[in-house]
């Protein structure tokens, strides 16, 4: 008998629910009817193909996209994209976007009073190498206020979008910074019930990738959904 689910279930508590009332925007946007369990067909196991040559080496250095250098604390964010068996995910698109050092996004709907930085756009992309490694150069994003509740502030974070081998490994997540006092108050970070799963979203400060007199290194590994073992492999 063919098993129609080719990728693993999510371990309990390791993913947020769609509805998380503390995150107010989820209330009118989360589905209310039960989701329907889908067999994994060729549609879902095949992968998005886009213009790979759109991604160039320059896209991974967010500090070098303008004539001058952006303000802020220079950082190097690197790590590996892995599957749940610990294998690197090769040649897979990683996209990031973030606020500038003052906590302001280059987006027309960001009305925070902090200044824009003419030398920082806040977006980057890179393909993982054959072992799933990636590396970005950027500046540490600032915390910023948002309207979720009284005196709400988002912890410093970088948004990540990942593809992996097909639709079923698609993931959008956020990377946080170690020691950020805002984490415990953030409903988005806390939308995941499992504490270890939450901590995996916090990057580690890393001496090895820190460059003397230049930039602090942070290491952030991302684990994408793994394949189910097929009966033939048992």
């Amino acid at each position: 008998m063919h098993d129609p689910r080719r990728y693993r279930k999510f371990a309990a508590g390791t993913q947020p629910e769609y509805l998380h009332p503390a995150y107010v925007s989820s209330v009118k946007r989360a589905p209310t009817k039960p989701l329907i369990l889908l067999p994994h067909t060729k549609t879902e196991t095949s992968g998005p193909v886009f213009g790979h040559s759109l991604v160039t080496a320059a896209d991974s250095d967010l500090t070098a996209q303008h004539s001058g250098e952006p303000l802020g604390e220079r950082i190097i964010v690197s790590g590996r994209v892995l599957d749940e068996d610990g294998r690197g995910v090769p040649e897979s698109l990683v996209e990031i976007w973030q606020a500038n050092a003052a906590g302001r996004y280059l987006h027309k709907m960001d009305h925070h009073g902090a200044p824009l930085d003419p030398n920082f756009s806040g977006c980057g992309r890179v393909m993982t190498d054959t072992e799933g490694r990636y590396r970005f150069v950027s500046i540490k994003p600032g915390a910023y206020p948002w309207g979720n509740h009284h005196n709400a502030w988002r912890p410093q974070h970088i948004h990540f979008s990942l593809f992996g081998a097909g639709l079923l490994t698609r993931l959008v997540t956020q990377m946080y910074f170690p020691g950020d006092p805002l984490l415990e108050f953030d409903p988005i970070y806390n939308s995941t019930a499992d504490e270890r799963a939450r901590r995996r979203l916090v990057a580690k400060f890393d001496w090895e990738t820190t460059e003397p007199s230049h930039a602090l290194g942070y290491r952030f590994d991302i684990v994408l959904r793994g394949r189910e073992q097929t009966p033939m492999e048992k």
Partner: protein
Amino acid sequence: MSASQTVGPFFSIGLEYLNRNDLVVPGISGAVITIRGQILDGDRQPVPDAQLEIWQADAEGNYSENKCEATSHSPAKFTGFARIFTDTAGKFEFRTIKPGSVRGAGGETQAPHIAVFVFMRGLLKLLYTRIYFPGEVANDSDAVLSLVPPDRKRTLIAGGRETKDFFEWNVMLQGSDETVFFEW
């Protein structure tokens, strides 16, 4: 597995470089179609800050498998992948090739469909759904559609209008006509 987090309100700055409302490339075979719709939230308010990410087969039912070179914003061949953003009225529109039938999980034939991920602030995980086409005989035997309660199937099947090459398909996030979303 790493936990999913919302894309937040400003994701377009990072993702819009792959925004493309027209997947049709010169010389592609198949019927050119346009799909138009709107995304509405639980208060029936339009969602102006959403993105659809679509993935589909070509007219022969084959998915792109190889890397594809690109010039500027346009891939050099039909890839079946695009990002489409909603406008200030929560509306979207894209032009593509009507997909052919592709194989299902057990080797059976699936009715023509387009896979859709929905991205927006407020979603802690991506929503996954499919667009099917009206009047397809294969819809009656499609293994995925057959899992959907009969009274909700219509949320997945696009409506046809004046002509056969124009379809309307809306995303209702909540309510009695809530779109069917899949646990993927």
